[in-house]
């Protein structure tokens, strides 16, 4: 958001970004167009894409099997390009709830879902999601029954993760498109579950 004519000094780091970018362009490493295209490309990657994958798995058991076997191939199967992504999909069941974190930095299936939220990258989430997942989930308003087990996945190396939530009761006659509307980003990270609104 900017008002025409209203300026403020670059911060040191904004100065660094402009300078680095201009130097790389001058040296022929990149073009401004490539950078602009890459910015736009990442804008288009959003949780809606992950919701499509989940909804398809809910309506098509064969697709679900393929998704759990090879997440990347299954995304590509429905026309979602996910360059360099090695996706592992983990399924919520009545016995098990899954939750994703990257304790070491902020690894996330960005090529599918886009840029992760601030809280996912925060010290507090990264520290406590592994050691006290139930307490963290409570803070997100999600209570997991003591009888269910929690699987926390720490994304430490080359794999990236997507939680396949359970399909809520009452959606049996919903279209695939309508199903996507209840699959939020937080459901696919594992800090929420789909809700009928």
């Amino acid at each position, binding site marked *: 958001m900017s008002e025409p004519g209203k300026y403020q000094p670059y911060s040191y780091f904004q100065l660094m970004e402009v300078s680095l970018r201009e130097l790389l362009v001058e040296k022929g490493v990149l073009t401004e167009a490539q950078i602009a295209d890459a910015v736009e490309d990442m804008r288009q990657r959003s949780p809606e894409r992950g919701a499509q994958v989940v909804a398809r798995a809910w309506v098509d058991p064969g697709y679900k099997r393929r998704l759990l076997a090879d997440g990347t191939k299954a995304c590509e199967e429905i026309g979602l390009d996910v360059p360099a992504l090695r996706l*592992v999909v983990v399924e919520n069941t009545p016995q098990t709830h899954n939750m994703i974190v990257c*304790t070491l930095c902020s690894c996330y299936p960005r090529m599918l879902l886009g840029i992760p939220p601030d809280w996912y990258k925060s010290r507090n989430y990264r520290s406590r999601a*592994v050691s006290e997942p139930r307490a963290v989930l409570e803070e997100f308003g999600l209570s997991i029954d003591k009888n269910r*087990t929690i699987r926390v996945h*720490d994304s*430490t190396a*080359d794999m990236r993760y997507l939680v396949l939530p359970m399909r809520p009761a009452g959606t049996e006659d919903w279209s695939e498109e309508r199903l996507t509307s209840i699959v939020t980003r937080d459901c696919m990270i594992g800090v929420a579950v789909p809700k009928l609104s």
Partner: protein
Amino acid sequence: MKVKSGSDPDFPRFKAGDRVRVRKAYPLGHIRTPYYIRGHRGVIERFCGVFGNPEELAQMRSGEPRQPLYRVRFLQKDVWPAYRGNPEDVVEVEIFQHWLE
């Protein structure tokens, strides 16, 4: 420990279900084996494939020898002394073969 490579007949060394222990070592450099899991015992959940070694890639080198990568499952109650939750709660971590024994 014998250094494994792509030409070694039993590379990768582990398969799903194998019990493993994460080495307890604290060297300098860029490491993707979290502190909290070093020294702990777990079970291989799956073999993920062979990848460049991030410790080497971080130093602007080739990442060789490439290492098999596994997802390893640990019981939370084994990892955290004060863990309160279901005793079957687990944490699953990707660990490179050279950190496993």
